[in-house]
């Protein structure tokens, strides 16, 4: 059976997911799997199951195989680009699992963000922010936190509390964007 990604090599890793009557199959060759895996060779087989497990976590809204294939495809990079700031190239990043500088994250966004999403399950920082960040970032974070709270209030049907939070969000937004 040929690999679903490169259509060239023989696939050696076969994933089958059965959910009710719905059966999905993914067939990958070693090369493509390594390409998408963000780990070095040593850890590759140990962590492979973990990574696949992540893609197939029940309840994840993107279980459809189309999306999974897209994630994998995004990761098989076409050219070996170099970061303009630190000179680190994608191949090295994939080999070592480490980027060279903060700028790498924005320059290789297309390649790295899906990986980060699959590792961390989120692309939204909810942790603390440094003291010296600009006022705008700080306000934006408060708005994000408030939106989370708003959702929770709506779930428990506390509409009075929700309305208050909504007003606070509006005030903050006005504060940032001047509208």
């Amino acid at each position, binding site marked *: 059976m040929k690999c679903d990604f490169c259509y060239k090599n023989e696939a050696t890793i076969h994933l089958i997911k059965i959910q009710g009557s719905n059966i999905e199959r993914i067939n990958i060759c070693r090369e493509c799997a390594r390409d998408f895996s963000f780990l070095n060779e040593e850890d590759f087989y140990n962590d492979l199951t973990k990574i696949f497990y992540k893609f197939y976590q029940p309840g994840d809204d993107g279980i459809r195989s189309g999306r999974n294939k897209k994630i994998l495809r995004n990761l098989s990079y076409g050219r070996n680009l170099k970061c303009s*700031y*630190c000179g680190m190239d994608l191949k090295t990043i994939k080999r070592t699992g*480490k980027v060279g500088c*903060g700028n790498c994250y924005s320059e290789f966004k297309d390649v790295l963000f899906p990986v980060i999403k699959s590792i*961390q*399950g989120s692309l939204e*920082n*909810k*942790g603390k922010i440094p003291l010296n*960040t600009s006022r705008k970032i700080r306000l934006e974070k408060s708005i994000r936190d408030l939106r989370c709270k708003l959702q929770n209030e709506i779930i428990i049907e506390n509409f009075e509390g929700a309305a208050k939070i909504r007003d606070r969000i509006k005030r903050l937004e006005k504060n940032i964007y001047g509208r």
Partner: protein
Amino acid sequence: MAGENLYLMKNKTEQEKSAGNRNKIILNTRIWLARNLTNQKFAGAGSGRERNALLEEIKKSVSDTKIFKDFRYYKIGSLGKIQRDLLFKDYMIDAGVANRMQGKGLFIRSRLSSGMSTAVIINHEDHLGIQSTCPGLNIRKAYKEVTGIEKYFEKRLSFAFDSNLGYLTASPFNLGTALRITVIAHLPILIVGPGIADFVKKINSIGCQINGYFVGRSEIIGNLFEISNQVTLGKGERDIVKEMQAICLSIIEDEQNARMQLKRNDLLGIEDNIYRSFGLLKYAKILSYEEALELLSILRLGLDLSIIDGVYDFDFFELINKISNPRIILDMEISDEVNDDRLDSIRAGIIRKKVLKEAD
């Protein structure tokens, strides 16, 4: 009134007892926090000179302060191999990355009274690695220590930060809060029981990973495990701390239940096992590190279950550090070209002295 007092007292001793048991299953807590400076290459990409310059900058920022007064400073490049091995082991630094020594530094403070130690690792994967270890289950205390030092640096240095990705780190596994909480757990019964597969699944499903304590080995030695939070992005620091605390308590409960069950079902079997370990530790003249750990693990279990006496209530984690090869070489001041049999025999001696009440 008197009755109430009595009740309170009883309550307290029970609390202390349960804390004691807790610390016999969760042996150690380690919290690690990474930070990088803005507009600088990360340690992996920078040249030796760039790393050196950064090291100087960081050193300068701590030179005029009281907080760092009782820290000792080591330049990694100028340490001997054994010392380096030991420091790396104690502070859980991955020795594999240590081949490029230039511009790497380490600040250490250890408090003997509380057993707590704090380290700031410079230019090792990330510019700053702030780490604190505490004996037993002590997540909040270690977290407080780490954030205290982070706050200090935050006032003097500017950290690389992105509003979506949080604190930027060399490895995408640490983005966001860049906070990693690791506990070392001693799970001798859970691991052999039938529930182990479910247990590992449970740990993984709540976003944690579980590994053997000894890195780079596929087998489990001494029934010791490392459990740490896997997700650092998309969760707040407080949530991570709270979650890990809850997970640890549930691990302790699982292990304790498994112990009780086994004690009910096969008391003779465990007794036999424990006394066999006791016999070997008492009479063996040479003990390899691995064997010693396995035997001590079972003996510790015997103490926890009050099955054995004639043994000191030893601190398992402290002892396994004390009987490691680099530690023996440094403590005994012997040459590092010593042969294995001699090390193994010294090890057997240390264990007899520390563990058996009637040492020969």
